């Protein structure tokens, strides 16, 4: 589908927000889309930060050739998007007090999830981890949604000093949804005893289950991160 880029704005030195207009089909937080970019063969998978029927918000870090091209696109451009992809988080599988744990660029899908959980009447708490104060993004957006938000930075320059896992002990929650670097997800899995959902990242080919480029081994057999995930129950994953 062709969507119209209506906003491309920097949130930090290397994190950008895209807003796309047009019907996108997204039904669940944690789904993702594949973006075709001129001059690149493969589409680039980007998680959905938030959405309405006719708008899509993507927040991404500029890390390579694809995201560099994305950051350089200007509003008004038509963008070829494959959407929606992946299973997403299941808000129904969360308790009434879910912890949403996000590290760096793993944070965006937790915004849409937080909104869905608030709408459902849950009281989610967001733990957002960054390196430095200068890296903070989406924190104001989370708070303005009404999400109780705990900020953690590695150097203590904003919020609490440490990692997301360091604040677990003083928070009370009955379920966990997490997205971020694999070491963070592993640490969370080993520390937490509540029902959990983890969003994984893997280099993808097609993004819709055909190429087997993003397969992982799980306790339930081989799974495709794109089509069987990207969200998996913690107990299903082979940590």
């Amino acid at each position, binding site marked *: 589908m062709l969507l119209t880029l209506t906003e491309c704005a920097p949130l930090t030195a290397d994190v950008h927000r895209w807003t796309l207009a047009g019907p996108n089909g997204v039904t669940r937080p944690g789904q993702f889309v594949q973006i075709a970019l001129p001059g690149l*063969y493969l589409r680039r998978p980007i998680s959905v930060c938030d959405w309405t029927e006719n708008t899509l918000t993507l927040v991404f870090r500029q890390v390579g050739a694809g995201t560099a091209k994305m950051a350089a696109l200007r509003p008004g451009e038509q963008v070829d998007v494959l959407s929606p992809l992946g299973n997403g988080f299941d808000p129904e599988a969360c308790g009434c007090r879910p912890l949403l744990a996000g590290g760096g660029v793993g944070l965006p899908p937790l915004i849409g999830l937080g909104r869905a959980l608030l709408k459902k009447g849950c009281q989610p708490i967001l733990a957002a981890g960054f390196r430095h104060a200068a890296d903070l993004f989406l924190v104001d957006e989370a708070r303005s949604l009404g999400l109780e938000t705990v900020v953690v930075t590695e150097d203590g320059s904003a919020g609490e000093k440490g990692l997301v896992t360091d604040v677990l002990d003083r928070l009370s929650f009955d379920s966990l949804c997490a997205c971020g670097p694999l070491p963070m997800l592993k640490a969370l899995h080993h520390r937490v005893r509540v029902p959990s959902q983890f969003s994984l990242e*893997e*280099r*993808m*080919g097609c993004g*819709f*289950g*055909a190429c087997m*480029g*993003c397969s992982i081994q799980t306790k339930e057999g081989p799974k495709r991160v794109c089509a069987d995930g990207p969200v998996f129950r913690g107990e299903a994953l082979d940590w």
Partner: protein
Amino acid sequence: MTEHDLRVSLSGVELDNPVIPASGTFGFGQEFTPYYDINCLGSLSFKGTTAEARFGNPTPRIAECPAGMLNSVGLQNPGVRHVIAGELPALRKIFRKPIIANISGFSVQDYVEAAALLSREEQVAILEINISCPNVRHGGMAFGTSPEAAAEITRAVKKVATRPVYMKLSPNVTDIVAIARACEEAGADGLSLINTLLGMRIDLKRRRPVLANTMGGYSGPGIFPIALRMVWQVTGAVSIPVIGMGGITTAADVIEMMMAGASAVQVGAANLINPTACREIIDALPAEMDRLGIRRLRDIQRVS
């Protein structure tokens, strides 16, 4: 508007049109049904299967390339028995046409076992024997890089097969014509070419190969001229039909590949970046034929 005849024939198997999704880029069809009714396809070559289940290689398995991509999936599949019990009955519900069974192996016995089992499947019209996977050790491509080994697999599979046998050849050889001739002499009913070209990328920041398996198969429009050249060379040297593949992305590519000598074509990487690629190519063929003054597609096969 003239009547367009898109029909082609592969060893007596009649196809409504020459467009076939290539093995490994189309699964068993299920992933594409949300995008279109796949019954418009000429046929479908399903994800390569092996005697035993395989997980394949570690990730990353995919890398971006100019005009294409690398993959090092490594023949991930649930094994031929699971394919027959689960995947083929599900495929039958969404696809009514003859299918091509793609088979890989690590020994002659592996190929024979899978070929014998898949020969009993009613919907399977052709066996496509992959002796060209660049992503597994001790097998796959090892059989496709020597004329003797290619002939040995061909003969062994022909003994048990009750369907036409097409050998899928590797471009990673000095002389693909010698391999093609060896397969023909050993009794192959047809050939499929080309598989991917062995390639590699390095992650500059991490200073290590992008792919966990270091090397992978390069596919996409970048390989089209190489594939076309090899189809030309091979169809000039053998008299069995050839399915041409390698970077086909447009209706014009289909016609060009048939003019090079292909009896039908497979579309691979294009499916992965655009799930409706095959349908778009099929839909565009009549207009492209009009533009070129072609009424019957099979008439253009092999220009001189």
